């Protein structure tokens, strides 16, 4: 069975991490989100995956190649411009001759979800989507049900306008006739897949299966820390290469360590930490609840808590990301009391004795001079000096 996975979206809310990589390639528990998706597809007996890729597609292609490591046949189609999910799916039309699974590449789910959607589609021949309950449904596509049939589908409705707790998980099973339906959908600019599904709803053909398993979505940066922490617990720790960890350093059970990592004397890598490949953890560094991407250098005495650190970033000696809860303003919205020490982009050069206050977001290639105090949002390539 074939699956089309939409992985062309840019995911602007996770700036600056999504400047250099598509959202599905952001690592959680040291593996890209998309790899968790591919694993679920593999577990559901999918044998051929068509990835719809767009901006920064090289990152996806380099990582997954032709799928041999997953014993899957992986091929790529390119969505040159971001013209909506319907348009993205349409790019795969030439590869599809029969019923297939379509899903998003940036949400982590279980194989069971895919199997249930597929089975129901096989039993009925109708298009099927799946729904799950979440705390804040109005952040997603809210689905109203009449028995098993979908009676409405509304993207991010005002909370007062809906009573349903069900949201669309973004996993579908379709017949190839979906492509004609997408083309016939009148669009204003973007072709959203959900607009096309409204037609099926009008014909009373769109079915939903309800699902209570794992469904993890990263909308805001701090979601990444939470997802990382829960997946480490779920998947268990990876083996650490003992030769690269000094005897006097501590690496917690609930931490994942990539290849070629060095942990110097007296360093502590505590709960909820993942270290990407080729990371150097200097003497006396303390890390807790942190996602550290590949090629990062943490110099002596740095303390990094509740924080995401982009690839190839250097954090100077005795620099502190203090962590903890704070109110964060992001994209014109205030989020109260989130645990978020900060997010540093790729290739950031942070000097010694810098303090990064909770909720800070630092753009790619920024330079933070020694002893600076950082707060709020710092743009790409900015130079910040102690003032």
């Amino acid at each position: 069975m074939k699956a089309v996975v939409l992985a062309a979206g840019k995911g602007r809310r996770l700036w600056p991490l999504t400047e250099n990589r598509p959202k599905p390639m952001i690592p959680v528990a040291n593996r890209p989100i998309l790899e968790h998706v591919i694993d679920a597809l593999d577990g559901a007996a999918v044998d051929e995956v068509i990835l719809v890729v767009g901006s920064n597609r090289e990152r996806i292609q380099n990582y997954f190649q032709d799928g041999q490591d997953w014993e899957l046949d992986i091929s790529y189609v390119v969505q040159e411009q971001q013209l909506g999910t319907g348009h993205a799916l349409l790019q795969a039309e030439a590869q599809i001759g029969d019923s297939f699974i379509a899903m998003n590449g940036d949400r982590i789910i279980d194989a069971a979800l895919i199997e249930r959607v597929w089975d129901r589609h096989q039993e009925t021949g109708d298009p099927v989507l799946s729904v799950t309950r979440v705390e804040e449904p109005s952040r997603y596509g809210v689905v109203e049900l009449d028995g098993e049939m979908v009676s409405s589908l509304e993207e991010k409705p005002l909370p007062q306008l809906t009573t349903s707790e069900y949201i669309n998980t973004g996993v579908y099973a379709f017949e190839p006739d979906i492509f004609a339906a997408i083309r016939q959908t009148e669009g204003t600019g973007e072709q959203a897949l959900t607009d096309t599904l409204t037609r099926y709803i009008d014909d009373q053909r769109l079915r939903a299966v309800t699902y209570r398993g794992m469904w993890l979505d990263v909308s805001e940066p701090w979601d990444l820390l939470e997802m990382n922490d829960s997946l480490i617990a779920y998947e268990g720790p990876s083996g650490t290469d003992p030769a690269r960890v000094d005897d006097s350093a501590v690496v917690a059970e609930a931490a994942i360590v990539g290849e070629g990592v060095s942990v110097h004397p007296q360093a502590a890598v505590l709960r909820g930490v993942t270290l990407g490949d080729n990371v150097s953890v200097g003497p006396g560094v303390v890390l807790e609840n942190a996602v550290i991407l590949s090629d990062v250098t943490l110099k002596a005495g740095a303390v990094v808590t509740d924080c995401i650190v982009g690839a190839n970033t250097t954090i100077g000696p005795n620099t502190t990301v203090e962590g903890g809860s704070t109110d964060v303003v992001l994209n014109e919205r205030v989020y109260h009391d989130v645990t978020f020490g900060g997010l540093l982009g790729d290739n950031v050069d942070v000097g010694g004795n810098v303090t990064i206050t909770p909720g800070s977001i630092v753009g790619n290639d920024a330079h933070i001079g020694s002893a600076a105090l950082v707060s709020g949002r710092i743009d790409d390539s900015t130079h910040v000096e102690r003032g």
Partner: protein
Amino acid sequence: MCGITGYIGTEPAGRIVHQGLKNLEYRGYDSAGIALAGETVSVYKTEGEVDELPVPAQNDVACGIGHTRWSTHGEPTETNAHPHTDCSGDVAVVHNGIIENYEELKAALRDQHIFKSDTDTEVIPHLIENHLADDVSLLTAVQRTTAQLEGSFAIAVTAAGHDGVVVAREDSPLLVGHGENATFIGSDATAFIEHTDQVTYLESGDIARLTREDIEIYNAGEPVTREIETLEWDAEAAGKSGYEHYMLKEIHEQPRALRQAISGRIDELATSVDLDIDLPAEYLRSIEEIQIVACGTSYHAGLYAKELLEAHAGVRVTVHIASEYEFGGDRDPWRTMVVAITQSGETADTLSALRNAKRAGARTLAVTNTLGSTVTRDADDTVFIRAGPEIGVAATKTFVSQVATATLLTVHLGQVRQSITSQTTTELLESLRDLPGAVQQILDREATIKDAAETYADSESFFYIGRQAGYPVALESALKLKEISYDHAEGFAAGELKHGPLALVTPETPVIALLTNASAAEKTLNNVNEVESRGAPVIGVTSDPAATSHVDTTFDIPECGPLEPVVANVALQLFAYYVADAKDRAIDKPRNLAKSVTVE
């Protein structure tokens, strides 16, 4: 060089052999052909690429051999394409290598045999025809034939009415793949890697009779056994994964290749390296000179290695173009180590230089990308660069991995010889560790390089200048451009410009200047001024914001210590790629070139 493949099994052989040729196409693509052998032998040939050769429609034959050719003797025509047959058309032969005595053999055969082609190969089927007339087995006929041949060869032979295929190897590479109910033949494992990872490497002098389930190997007439080995590479790594060209895919694989090159070899805590070199420490301490032998891109990596080794390993280093190499000058072979750098491990010029050094009594070390390749057997010890398979004819990731490996070797030798300071060790190892991330940043800035490439694509000539470690990178970057864009490009030591090449500089010839760390950028800036006053546009590759005011276009690269010129090379690989792409060149298969050259 050429590529050989073959299949003996149960499926229609035409399709499988054809696919094998596609996989081997990087070894040569002037012409291609297939012979299918059952009760009769049918031959299908074409001039040009494998794609021009239709998959044989014949579905009832499960035994076949194929060949993709890169011309050495005779033009790339359909007549000269392999397989070659005897007068009866019952014996078909594919051949990689050169038969040195073919003219005498041909003269002797000419009275009784009709020759159709200009190739050296064609003598082989006619010789076999003569021996088969004595009513011997195909194996015996091939044994008798190879005894008459001089030169280097890998051949595969089928004959009507004889079961299976007989292969023979003398220097040129050849291996056998063992599948379920099938046996495969390849010049390298790429030919059949999607079918099996179980292989037997034949050794020089081996002649083997292959059937669907069996392999009998003879050497000097005696039966021998050769081990079956499991390949570590898989077919996945040889696909294009959505990229337009292998070259672009391989450029993008560099951060990963570099992490592999250093993975497990650096102990950051102890600031030491482990290269798994068996050469004894006493020997490494005693050597007075290292001679590096290599060709093409590997030669440039050798020049970079010289910069590092002379500065930090306290040893005199000379770098030799392999085809020009002789062990001479009254050197003491006991105090000379010869290092052969070859991506494929099969480069004939390099192997021949290595053998020359061995005969003189020097110890040898191979630096290669290919497990099980000839150089790994010939040299006393081997260090692998671990870049993964490289298919694009223009070498990219293997260059950076060769330099990374040379850096590790420098630290190792420096420590053994106690010539390197701990500060320099830390600096080199940090630079190595920073390299993957720095290269990734170049890839993230691809769009700006592409824009510049399109701006300058129509220039008359391109000159690359650099000093110190920037000099080999200037040579390598110029080679990349000329290989794939067919533009005239030259690399010069920056100081040499005023001694001649400056006469070539005009407003139509952009000059690309390496203004990085470890390349004496301040001095090169003087040379930038020289060319600018002749009106030439200058592209500066630099991590120093101050340098940008001296140049017209800047390729801004991240700081990366002594290996910063390697980062610059990646930017210039992309520049070459996009200049060639703007001209719509056949980037993975540049005209007249082949991936690894197994003829001298």
